[in-house]
C-alpha cells in the first residue's frame, strides 16, 4: 500500500496506532514528489527539458531532512507510548510565505532569496507540535501578489495537475497543486483576496479561509495585514477540518488573533445539514468588470458550468434537508475588487517598505553612490513587476491628497460589504442564513500566460472570493465537478464569524452525498501513469 492514497486522518490514525511508520509515510510522499514535481523553481534562467512541461513544480524547497527528524520524533513518541499528536506522521507542505526556522523563506521573491528566519510561524509551530512532517515550501505568486502563481521569481511556476498547460490559480498555487498531485495530503496556504480558495477550486481540492484572527498571522510575511488569513488546503472536508483544528486558536504574538473558543470541527461534521439555511445570491451569478480605459463597469456572464454547479450543490443539500433561500441580496459584492485594489495595495506598499537591502535578503551588487541609490537599485533588482505595481498603486491611493478619495472611501465600502453579510446571517433578519453558497471563481483554470500581465483581469478572478476577506468571515471552497474540458469546478460557502463549523458541515454533507459521483473518480492528468492510477 502506498500511503499517498490515504487521507491525513487515516495516516495519523495508523501512525498513532503503530500500524504505519511516519518514516514510511515520508518516504512514500518524497517519492511522489520525485515522480511528479520536476525541477524546483529557480532564479536562474534554466533551459528546461520538455518533459518538465508536464510536471507540477509545486515545491521551491523540499525539506527532507527536517521532515525526517520530525518523523523520527513521531516514531519515538509512538514507541514510548506517548500521543504523537492529531497529525502524527502527516506530511504537510507550507506556502513559502511562512517563516520556518531551518528553511529558506523567500516569498517567491529575489529580494528574500537567501533569507533564513530565526523563528517559525505560529501556525507551522502548531502543525509541528501536532506531529506533522514539514516536507517543504511551495511556490506562489511573488509575495502572494497574483491569482495564478505565475509571477513567482522562481521559475518554472507551478502547473495545474489536472492540465499542466493551465495555471494552478494563486497565490497558494504550489500548495493547491501539491495536494492535488498527492505530494502531500495537506498544505498550509494564505488567503488575502481568495488565495486559498481560488487555487483550491482550480486544482480540485478543498481550501478554507478561516475567520480573520481565527489563525495566527505571526510568521506570515504580510501582504494585506487586515485581510491575510492562514488556512488549510486538503483533499477532503474532514482533512481540512482536522487541520483547522490544529491551526485555530489565539496567539499572544498576534494582537489580532481571536480569543473566541475553538469548537470541535470534526465532531461538527457529523451533525448534517438538516435545518441549515443555505442562501443563493443573484449577485454571485455574474461579475462586474470595468473597461480598462474608462472604468465603465459592465456585467459579464461567468462560465455557465459554475452556476449549474452551484444549483447542483443546492439541490443535493436540499435533498439532505437543508433549506435553500433564493435571491439573497449582496448588492455591495461588486465593489469588492475596487475596494481591494485600494486597501490591499496600501497595506502591501507599507509592508514592502522593510525590504531595502540593509538587514537581510538581496542587496544590489551594483556600485552605488549613496544610501538612496542602494535602496532604489536593491528594490529595482529585488522586486518583480507585481510588487512594484502594488507599491506604486498603494503609494498613490494613500498619498495625503488622495487618501480621502480612495483609501478612506474604500474602508467605508468595506463596511458596506460586511453589512451585506450581517443582514444575510442576522438570526432575526429576513434571511437568517447559516451559509451563503456561491461559485468560487468566475471560470475554471485559465491557460498559462493567458491573463498574466493584465493586472486588472487577474484581480477580477478574485471577485467571488474577496468579499469574505473584506468582511473577515470564513469561507470554504470545495470541488463540485469538472467542466467539459475536465477542469475542476469549485463552489464556496461563506459563513458567520467563527462559524467554520457550519460551512464545513454543509461542505461535508455535499461531499458525502456525491462520494460516488463519476467525476470524483477522475484522476488528474499529472498523476496518470503514476502509482495512483495503478
Amino acid at each position, binding site marked *: 500500500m502506498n500511503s499517498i492514497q490515504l487521507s491525513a486522518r487515516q495516516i495519523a490514525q495508523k501512525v498513532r496506532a503503530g500500524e504505519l511508520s511516519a518514516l514510511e509515510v515520508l518516504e512514500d510522499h518524497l517519492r511522489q514528489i520525485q515522480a511528479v514535481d520536476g525541477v524546483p523553481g529557480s532564479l536562474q534562467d534554466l533551459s528546461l527539458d520538455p518533459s518538465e512541461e508536464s510536471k507540477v513544480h509545486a515545491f521551491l524547497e523540499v525539506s527532507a531532512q527536517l521532515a525526517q527528524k520530525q518523523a523520527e520524533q513521531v516514531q519515538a513518541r509512538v514507541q514510548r507510548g506517548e500521543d504523537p499528536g492529531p497529525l502524527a506522521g502527516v506530511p504537510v507542505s507550507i506556502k513559502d510565505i511562512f517563516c520556518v526556522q531551518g528553511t529558506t523563506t523567500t516569498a517567491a521573491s529575489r529580494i528574500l532569496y537567501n533569507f*533564513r528566519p*530565526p523563528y517559525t510561524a505560529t501556525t507551522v509551530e502548531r502543525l509541528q507540535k501536532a506531529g506533522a512532517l514539514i516536507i517543504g515550501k511551495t511556490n506562489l505568486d511573488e509575495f502572494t501578489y497574483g491569482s495564478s502563481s505565475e509571477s513567482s521569481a522562481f521559475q518554472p511556476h507551478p502547473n495545474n495537475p489536472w492540465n499542466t498547460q493551465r495555471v494552478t490559480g494563486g497565490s497558494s498555487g504550489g500548495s493547491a497543486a501539491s495536494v492535488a498531485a498527492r505530494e502531500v495530503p495537506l498544505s498550509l496556504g494564505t488567503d488575502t483576496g481568495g488565495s486559498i480558495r481560488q487555487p483550491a477550486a482550480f486544482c480540485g481540492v478543498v481550501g478554507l479561509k478561516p*475567520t*480573520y*484572527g481565527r489563525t495566527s498571522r505571526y510568521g506570515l510575511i504580510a501582504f494585506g495585514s*487586515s*485581510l491575510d488569513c492562514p488556512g488549510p488546503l486538503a483533499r477532503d472536508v474532514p482533512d481540512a477540518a482536522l487541520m483547522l483544528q490544529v491551526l485555530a486558536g*489565539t496567539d499572544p504574538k498576534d*494582537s*489580532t*488573533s*481571536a480569543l473566541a473558543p475553538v469548537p470541535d470541527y470534526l465532531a461538527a461534521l457529523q451533525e448534517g445539514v438538516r435545518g441549515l439555511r443555505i442562501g443563493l445570491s443573484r449577485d454571485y451569478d455574474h461579475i462586474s468588470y470595468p473597461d*480598462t*480605459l*474608462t*472604468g465603465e463597469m459592465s456585467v459579464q456572464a461567468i462560465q455557465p458550468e459554475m452556476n449549474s454547479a452551484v444549483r447542483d450543490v443546492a439541490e443535493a443539500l436540499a435533498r439532505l434537508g437543508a433549506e435553500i433561500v433564493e435571491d439573497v441580496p449582496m448588492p455591495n459584492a461588486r*465593489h469588492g*475588487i*475596487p*475596494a481591494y*485594489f*485600494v486597501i490591499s495595495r496600501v497595506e502591501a506598499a507599507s509592508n514592502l517598505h522593510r525590504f*531595502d537591502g*540593509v*538587514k537581510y535578503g538581496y*542587496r544590489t551588487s551594483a556600485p552605488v*553612490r*549613496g*544610501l*538612496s*541609490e*542602494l*535602496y*532604489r*537599485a536593491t*528594490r*529595482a533588482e529585488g*522586486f518583480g*513587476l507585481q510588487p*512594484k*505595481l502594488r*507599491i*506604486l498603486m498603494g503609494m*498613490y491611493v494613500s498619498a495625503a491628497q488622495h487618501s480621502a478619495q*480612495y483609501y478612506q*472611501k474604500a*474602508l*467605508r*465600502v*468595506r*463596511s458596506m*460589504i460586511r453589512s451585506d453579510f450581517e443582514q444575510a446571517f442576522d438570526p432575526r433578519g429576513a434571511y437568517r442564513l447559516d451559509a451563503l453558497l456561491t461559485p468560487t471563481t468566475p471560470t475554471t483554470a485559465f491557460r498559462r500566460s493567458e491573463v498574466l500581465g493584465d*493586472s*486588472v483581469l487577474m*484581480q477580477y478572478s478574485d471577485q467571488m472570493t474577496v468579499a469574505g476577506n*473584506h*468582511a*473577515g*468571515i470564513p469561507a470554504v471552497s470545495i470541488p463540485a465537478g469538472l467542466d467539459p474540458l475536465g477542469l475542476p469546478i469549485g463552489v464556496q460557502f461563506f459563513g458567520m*464569524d467563527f462559524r467554520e463549523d457550519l460551512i464545513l458541515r454543509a461542505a461535508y454533507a455535499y461531499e458525502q452525498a456525491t462520494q460516488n459521483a463519476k467525476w470524483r473518480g477522475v484522476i488528474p492528468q499529472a498523476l496518470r501513469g503514476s502509482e495512483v492510477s495503478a
Partner: protein
Amino acid sequence: MTPDSITPEMFAKLVTLAALELTPEESEYLRTELNHQLAAVKELSEIQLAEGVQPSLHGLDCQGSAPRPDMWLPFPNPAEILAQAPDSDGAYFRVPDFSRGEGES
C-alpha cells in the same frame, strides 16, 4: 483616458518616492497598468454611502488579547539577526552614507 490618469511626470515622482528605479519598458507597462487599476477603482468615488457609515479596519470587530504585561524576555539569538545582514562589521549593520545632494527625508 480618464482625467485621473497618471502622467509620466507624476509617475516618475511616484517611482522616486517608492525608492524604485525602472527601465523604460517597465515604466511603460507599470504606468499603463496603474492607470487601468485607477480606472477600475473609479467606481469607488461613485458609490453613495449612507450617512454614518464608518470605516472598517478588519471587517469584523477584532476581539483580541489585552496588551501584554511589561516583561523583559531577551530574544535568544540576536546574532542570527545580524548574521542575515548583506553587509556588517560584525557589530553593526553597514550601509553607504547619504551621498551629497541626497535628501534625508
